[in-house]
């Protein structure tokens, strides 16, 4: 399979009061052509930041990429200028954000907002562009597309707005769609509609999707492969079936165990003790060690390396690493 995106040891930091705060501490994963990769993890672990780093959308923040590489279609994005990135954004990669309420400009008509990337990236004249807008709107299942273009975002429901966001992202046929928690703000019944739509569009267009979520249910429904993030790193990467069947990293295990499942009838959920560490105050060694029930001495001292488990599986845990060593020893 062909890799569309390869993120390698990506490091991203913010500067606050002249102090550098590294949030992404070496993120690595890849996305193949036509595949949906799920990026899961708890709040604050750096999921959104990973996606913003890929697009290099740091304007207005102190964020910057301080290490690693992002290779998109064989080209390293980390060295691209803002001008070059603008050609890529919206055309080759597009993004959908979590909040459909605030991600659309409240004072611009829907049509105008949709027209922008089309006029910018596609060589279409005014009329063709407008037709394209209608076409795209119909494609994402918007009824009354011809009228909707003259309306403002607040006149639409949350689900409709998210459809508009999807339409906007799809309008220039990007190869990569980054969807950052596209359904978190929506009700379950609407979430079901949106997920259904995304699945269908992804299949039709053969697009690659980076789906960011913290909902394991959504991951199980949507993704081909999954990367699990914890404290600014990918701790486990696997095929979706393998991940749910035999999670390797204690964090992944804990995560799956924490979710109540309908029909499961557990009296008590397994839970991960403690809290997510604060980026300014990271523990030494494995960042998960203080919360890990199986932590060993080495875990508190040194960070584990990514171990290739074959079959595209990857995991960073001393238990695996040590276990391997023992096997080979």
């Amino acid at each position: 399979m062909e890799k569309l995106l390869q993120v390698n040891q990506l490091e991203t930091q913010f500067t606050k009061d002249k102090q550098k705060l590294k949030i992404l501490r070496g993120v690595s994963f890849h996305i193949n052509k036509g595949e949906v990769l799920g990026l899961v993890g708890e709040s604050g672990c750096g999921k959104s930041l990973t996606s913003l780093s890929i697009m290099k959308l740091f304007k207005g923040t102190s964020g910057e990429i301080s290490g690693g590489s992002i290779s998109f279609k064989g080209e390293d994005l980390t060295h691209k200028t803002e001008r070059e990135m603008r050609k890529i954004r919206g055309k080759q990669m597009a993004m959908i954000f979590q909040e459909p309420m605030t991600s659309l400009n409240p004072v611009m008509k829907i049509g105008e907002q949709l027209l922008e990337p089309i006029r910018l990236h596609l060589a279409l004249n005014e009329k063709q562009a407008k037709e394209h807008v209608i076409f795209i709107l119909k494609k994402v299942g918007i009824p009354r597309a011809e009228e909707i273009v003259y309306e403002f975002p607040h006149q639409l429901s949350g689900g409709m707005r998210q459809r508009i966001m999807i339409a906007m992202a799809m309008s220039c046929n990007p190869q990569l769609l980054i969807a950052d928690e596209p359904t978190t703000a929506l009700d379950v019944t609407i979430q079901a509609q949106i997920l259904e739509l995304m699945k269908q569009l992804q299949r039709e267009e053969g697009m690659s999707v980076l789906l960011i979520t913290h909902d394991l249910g959504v991951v199980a429904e949507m993704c081909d492969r999954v990367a699990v993030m914890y404290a600014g790193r990918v701790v486990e990467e696997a095929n979706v079936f393998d991940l749910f069947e035999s999670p390797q990293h204690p964090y992944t295990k804990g995560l799956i165990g924490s979710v109540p499942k309908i029909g499961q009838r557990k009296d008590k959920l397994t839970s991960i003790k403690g809290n997510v560490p604060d980026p300014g105050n990271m523990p030494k060694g494995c960042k998960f060690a203080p919360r890990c029930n199986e932590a060993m001495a080495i875990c508190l001292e040194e960070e584990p390396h990514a171990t290739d488990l074959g079959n595209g599986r990857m995991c960073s845990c001393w238990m695996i690493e040590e276990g391997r060593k023992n096997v080979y020893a």
Partner: protein
Amino acid sequence: MPETLLKISGLKKSFTLPGGMFSKKRSLKAVHDVSFGIEQGTTYSLVGESGCGKSTTGRLISRLLTPSHGEIWIDGEEISQKKESQLKLVRKKVQMIFQDPYASLNPRMKVREIIAEPLVIHTKRSKAERNHLVSEMLEVVGLTEHHADRYAHEFSGGQRQRIGIARALIMKPKLIIADEPVSALDVSIQSQILNLLKDLQTEFNLTYLFISHDLSVVEHISDNIGVMYLGTIVESGPKDVIFSNPQHPYTKALLSSVPVPDPRLRRERIVLQGDLPSPVNPPSGCRFHTRCPACMDICRTVEPEVKKGLADDHFVACHLMD
């Protein structure tokens, strides 16, 4: 037979929306004829989509709002139209836990003050006594005495929610209304809090009114469930019935919409078409008919009555039941 702690019947609440520059005032029926009861020591959950009136129902019961119609009986006392001055006793018995652990704690108060606030309001205990009780409560919810002199924003979301729970428990209330207490939390923290709530229930024989939009959480914690749609309860009953044998098309759709964290269980879902109608202009007849996959003619005009379903305490409001 366990005693019924809370009983509400025919509860209604409408809000008046201010008119715009060129428009008239309109009324919004947030809660429209809701009835249920909760027995001592059990958990009753309200589920439904955003805006269906779950929180409003909770606020009516805690009398943060005054119902337009209907009765609220708590511990044998009818409180639906009581004045603020007459509510003090009720306020002792009923405590609330809120969704947003960041917003529900006053950022300018120390944890000690926050937890002790009900004591200050309702009792004349000395400062030392209050401090003692606060420390005790902190232990109960899994925090320590050291935390008492800090401000709430120094804590993580899960810890804050524990503080909120401590505050709710300190008056030894009979009923706790928990409005989406875990929706803002990460799954790993969510499970800690759910476990805590369950433990506390056994320990103190608490009664919960649990409000949530997350069906899996609801299934985990409740004994009985009410499914709400646009201000009404469309189906209610013991959790087993609701989850294993739902009768109302909305309940069925809701259940099928929940993504299951198991890739092998990918299935055909019932995807409801369209959006939730506005409560300002609810559809005529059955409120669900605009999105119902099994809509009949009668549904458009006649409001379905609440009928007994599969069990004694199972009720459904749907014409399909006829």
